[in-house]
Every structure is written in C-alpha cells, then in structure tokens.
C-alpha cells in the first residue's frame, strides 16, 4: 500500500452516486462467471447458466454486494430480480424460456395519453413490450432458450431494465396524477446531502449568471453555450437528479443538439430559461427529485478510446483558439466541460471513469469537500494536494495493469502550476493511456 493512501480514505468510505452509470464495481469474477454461464448454456444446463449469468451482473461497493440482482433456484425454475433505478424486473427462467416483467403503474390510473405513449413505445423496442392486465401496466419480455447464451440474453434484459427505469420516471413527470408502482426499493437521500446539493445548484447558477455577464456583448453565443451546457452536464453528474429535473434537463440537452433550424442564440435562450426555473425551485420541490437506488446496467454505450481522444483533442483545440483570441474567461469552463460531456455521452471503462472523476473532484473542490471528501485542490491559495493526487492515480491504474500491460500511472507527469495547466496536462495524459490488451 502506498503511504499516501492513508490520507485519502474518502474514496472507500463515502458513497455518493455520480453520473448515470452503475456507480459500483463489477465482481472480480465477472469474466469467469460469464464464461461459466456460456459453458452451462452449451451443456443445456439452462438454470445454472442463468444463475452464473445473473451473478456476473452483480455489482459491489467496498467489496460488499449491492444485491442488484437476486436469484432463487428451485427444482425446475430460477426466479430472479434485477434492480435498475426505480424499476424492479422480476421473472423466472425455465428450461424452455425466460419471462421477465416490470410493474409500471396501475391500469386504472392510466389515461389515454399514457396508453398511447406505451403503444408508441412498443414500436421502438426490440425485445420488450407493454401490456395491461386487470391491475397493472407492465413491460414484459419473453424469450426462448433454444439458442440462448449470455451475450444474447444481456441485450434483452438490458433493454427491459433501462427502459422500465426511464419510462417510469418519464410517466411520473409527463402524466399528471400517475402513481408509480413497485418502487418500495427506492431509498431516501439524506437531508444534509440534499441541502448540500441544493446549495451547490444555487451557487452554480449564480456563478453562471455572473460568468455570462463577463462575456463580450456580441458574438458570444458559442461561449454562452459552453457555460450553459456545462452547467447542465455538471448538475447531472454531480447531483444525479431524478424524475422532473432529470427528464427536463435531458430533453433540453437533446433539443439543443437536434433543433438545427433554430439559431444558437435561441437555443441558448431556451437553456437559460430552463436553468432559471431551477434557480427559483424551492428546496422541497428540489428534494422530491432524488432517491438512491441500485443499478445493474449502464445506460451509455461503450465507445472506443479513440473517440474519447478525438473529443479531447477537438476541445483542446477550441481552448487554444480562445486563449489566442484572449477569451480567457471561458477556458476553465471548457476544461470542466470535457469531462462532464464524456460522462454524459460515452460509456467508458472503469479506469478512465475513475481518472476523469478524480479530475472532476479536483476541478470542483467545494462541492466534494462539503460532502466530506478530502480536499484535492484549494481554490483560495490555488494549491494542489499533489501527493494525494499522485497516489490516487497510482491506485486507480494499478489494478488494471494486469490486463492492460502498457497502462502506466502518470501522476508525476502532471503540471501542478495552475488549475488550467493541470487540467490540460491531465487530458494529455488521458490521451496517452494505452488500453491495448497484449
């Protein structure tokens, strides 16, 4: 153990969710369990195969199982549960088939718009579909086991889990009076934590307004866009809001990038109006948008390291342009924006995730210290906790070096002269990481 790990206990003792992933570690035996599942499917030992498969999806926090998947093997059946945010998928596996379902809401409470919505959704799904019984509206999945293997069942289960979670939140937000069913597994977020998050949001929006005021009065749309989008990405990653805030923020971001017929000025304006609604939101209202839950699947699709490198490269070029043209006020924001954008849009490997999260911690010290994390950067005297940062990077890289032989820790290579220089050197080092499996 590195001596400096001793001073940095927070990574193992505090547990706050950040971003939209599972926020936990997969089992160390994940690959082995997956292979065992494959073998059992080959041998037509279907129930055992599924048992290994569900075990391979289990995730852990500080070596303890989050029980995000549960199974119960009987003589001729394997019953299972999968947790994904506000969705709980239950089902069973027999020798012949798999059946899974998620209870969404009561049939009697569904109005015509919700029914139309779920019938429209049925057309978009590949494996799962909505139906209605006497009591509930449910999303279901039925799959034969004839040609089954773990790769094949992963995607159907991922589809039902991610969409049940997303749609439950969507329904609550979109259709007035809808009461979600089967959400007893959701846990309340601690009041103090909510207060910290609320204060941070207020402070962030106040700073945003002040930053926008510093921009030149004309030709500032692109810079405004960075400020506004960075705010939304940052709030999403750091606060992890659910329900209304999540749904509306996601929609605003999506609209921003898809409404090509409106000007950037108009799109910025839309974001600003929305962010102002967050500013005026009271604490009670804000608090109703949070819960803690277990997750089994990551919602973003994995991307190549090359895609991340390209995005970093393009962003650093933009920074250089702003630097050369003396728009210094935007530079720290773009350095933050890079990580938040990657977290929001890309599925990245665990090492990369931890590294970028460390950078986020360094760039946003007040939020993390208020949650109880070790201070990695002091904003007042502009100093870094250099040794802790270097040790943290070592600690992140080390477990992955058996798999990626050319992966090297880079803490010593970082530039600690200023936060901007640090961020720049950090991204350059991220680009240098070699995830080739030899």
């Amino acid at each position, binding site marked *: 153990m590195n001596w400096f790990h001793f001073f940095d206990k927070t990574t193992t003792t505090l547990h706050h969710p950040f971003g939209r992933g599972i926020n936990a570690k997969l089992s160390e035996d994940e690959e082995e369990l997956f292979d065992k599942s494959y073998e059992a499917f080959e041998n037509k030992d279907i129930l055992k195969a599924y048992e290994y498969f569900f075990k391979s999806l289990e995730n852990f926090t500080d070596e303890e199982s989050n029980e995000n998947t549960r199974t119960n093997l009987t003589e001729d059946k394997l019953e299972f549960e999968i947790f994904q945010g506000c969705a709980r998928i239950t089902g069973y596996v027999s020798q012949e088939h798999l059946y899974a379902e998620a209870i969404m809401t009561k049939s009697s409470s569904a109005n015509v718009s919700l029914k139309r919505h779920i019938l429209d*959704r049925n057309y978009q799904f590949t494996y799962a579909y909505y139906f209605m019984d006497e009591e509930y509206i449910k999303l279901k999945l*039925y799959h034969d086991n004839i040609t089954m293997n773990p790769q094949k069942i992963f995607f159907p289960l991922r589809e039902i889990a991610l969409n049940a979670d997303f749609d439950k939140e969507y329904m609550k937000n979109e259709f007035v009076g809808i009461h979600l069913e089967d959400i007893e597994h959701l846990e309340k977020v601690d009041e103090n934590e909510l207060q910290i998050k609320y204060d941070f949001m207020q402070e962030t929006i106040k700073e945003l307004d002040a930053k926008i005021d510093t921009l030149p009065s004309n030709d500032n749309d692109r810079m405004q866009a960075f400020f506004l989008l960075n705010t939304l990405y940052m709030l999403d990653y750091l606060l992890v809001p659910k329900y209304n805030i999540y749904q509306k923020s996601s929609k605003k971001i999506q609209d921003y990038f898809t409404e090509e017929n409106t000007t950037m000025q108009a799109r910025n304006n839309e974001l600003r109006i929305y962010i102002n609604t967050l500013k005026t939101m009271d604490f009670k209202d804000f608090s109703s948008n949070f819960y803690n839950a277990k997750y089994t699947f990551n919602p973003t699709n994995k991307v190549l390291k090359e895609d991340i490198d390209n995005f970093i490269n393009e962003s650093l070029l933009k920074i250089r342009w702003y630097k050369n043209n003396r728009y210094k006020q935007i530079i720290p924001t773009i350095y933050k924006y890079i990580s938040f954008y990657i977290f929001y849009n890309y599925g990245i490997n665990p090492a990369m995730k931890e590294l970028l999260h460390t950078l986020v911690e360094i760039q946003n010290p007040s939020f993390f210290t208020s949650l109880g994390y070790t201070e990695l950067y002091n904003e007042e005297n502009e100093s870094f906790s250099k040794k802790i940062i270097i040790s943290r990077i070592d600690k992140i890289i080390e477990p992955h070096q058996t798999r990626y032989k050319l992966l090297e820790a880079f803490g010593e290579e970082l530039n600690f002269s200023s936060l901007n220089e640090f961020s720049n050197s950090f991204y350059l080092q991220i680009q240098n990481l070699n995830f080739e499996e030899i």
Partner: protein
Amino acid sequence: MNTQHILETYIENIIQIMTPYGTGSGFILGNLIITNSHVVAGLKEVVISAKKIKRIIAPVIYDDPYFDLAFIELESLIHPKTILQLSSNVVSDGDTTIAIGHPYGLNYTATEGIVSRASRLQDDLEYIQIDAAINPGNSGGPLLNENGEVIGVNTFIIENANNLGFALPYFYVQEALDAFLVLKKKNIIKCTSCKNLVEEVLIKNDYCYECGVKIETAKLRRKGYKPTGPTKLLEDILSSLDVDVDLSRRSQSSWRIDHGTARIEINYYENGIIIGDSKLCGIPSKNIEKLYDFLLQENAKLSYLQFSINENSIYLSYLIVDSSLTLNEGKTAINRLMEYSNKYDDILIQQYSAIKQKRDEED
C-alpha cells in the same frame, strides 16, 4: 398525343421486373418483354407484374450484356388493348420523348423530356441522350416518341448529374430481336467478346464455344440466386408455411406476404434484427381509448407477437435477432403473425371502427 394520354394508352404494356437485387422496368413487344440485361441481373427467372399481370415468375430467355438487353418470355396470353410498336423513324435532336417506368418503385411514372443528342457514342455503341428525369427503376422501360412508338430502351443515367439519361436506340433492339427470333430457340446469351449468340445448353464451364472466353452471364445464370445463413432460414420458414418465396421476395433481405386481408412485411436488417410487421389499420377518430385498452390487453395474451402504434397506424409485429431464429420458433411466430394479422384487422375495423389501410393496387 400528350404524355398523360400516351401513358394511359400504353400502360398495359409496361412491366415491373423484380429480382433479389433490385427492381426495374420492361415493356411488351410481341410475345416478349424487353428490358435491360442489368435489370435481370444474370438470373434465369425474374418476378414480373403489370396492370393485367399479378406477380408471376417469368423466364429470361435472352440475355445480351453487350447491348444491355434481355428478353423475358411472356407465357400467359396478355393482350394489351393497344400494343407498343418499335419505331423505325430517325430520332433527331430536340424530339420530344416520354420515358415510362417504375423509378424507385413508383409504379407507372411517365416523364417527359427532349432528345439532347440523338446519337451519343459510349464505348462503341450509340445512345439517345435525353434530358428526362429518369431514375433507378426506369432501367429497361421504353422511351417513346410523341406518336407512342418505342424509340429506345432507357438504359443508364449519369449518377449525381441532373437529367442526363441514355437510351439504347430502337435499331439495336430490332437487330437483337431479329438475330434472336431467327434462331427459334430459348436461353440464348450474347458473348460480349465475339458478339455471337450462344445456346446456354451447349456452354461448358461457362466458356463461349465460339471464341473461348468465360461468359460472366453464363456463370451467373448457372449459379442462380442462393440465399445463405439467416436469409435462407427465413426463406425455409416461409416455404414451410406454403408461402411462395420467389414471389414474396422483394429484395435479398425483405419479403412481402399477402394473407387474407392482411399484408405482412418481413425485413432483415444489417444489425441482425428481423422484423415481421403487419400494418393492420389506422386509428379511428372515436372511442380511441377503448381501442388502446383492447390492444394492451391482447398484448397480455400474445406470445411472440405484440401490438404497437407508429405514425397513427396499428401494427402487429414479431421481432427476433437473427442468431436466435430457429425453424420451429420462426415457423410458429410467422404463422401466428399471418393468421392473427388477418383476424385482427377485421376485428379492429368492425368492432373499433379502425380505418382500413389504403394500398396501391399494383404495389
């Protein structure tokens, strides 16, 4: 005659030709259907349809890649009210032309234009260059003059250029017809090297018995269209359900089956997903929620199939990943899709006032 009049007069002569590789046009001339060689794609049989011909399989009895011409035997006795004639008049620059065909599958489209150049040399053949906006699917269709006579066969366009179409002139068509008819034999291929007409039955190992070169068309005709992998499995499933696969095949990865009052479209996508869809009917204007309730309640009972709505139409669908498709499961699911689609469209129309789908009659 104006364009509309010409189209109405000769529409029965216009043929749509379909192969697994694409669709094109053709026209009746005597007892033959004239089209391009590239439209029949080296196959011995193609699917044809016309105003008075339901989709049928027809043999390609002459394939001439040199002129890019092919003749299909018109087995059924179709007698268009007004028959098309091959012109014998000289074509001049500035003449008005009408191209008829099925561009992009849009049936019986007539496009007017003028002859930009009556004789444009391409390699060693002359073509009529026209400014009519012809498109993929027009290939093999007739180019007519103002009198409704065939002055050429629409053969190719210059891609990404506006209105640059080329038709093989009538005199080459006449030359090919004369040479073919005098043989009084079927299954004739023109060798692209020596230009001799050779009998397919006498060809050994695809070599031209006159000049000794390999004839690509002979090879393609010998090999035919043979689906493999999941496509083959899908076609085996359809065959086992008494579906005429050759007639239902719309391309290498799509099939259309009419079953009773329902139409089922099966598409196999590049990402490995196979979707069998039946667009049953449109949503009604009254009591819509009751209809939704019915669809969602039926979804509780259905296996393999599901109801959904897309763009105001109600679908009954079967979705599966190619690697999961098996003969038995596929057979059960597609059979159900066919039977239930035929049943549910009536239920939805009669009991829920859903709107019947409009269909292009020749589609």
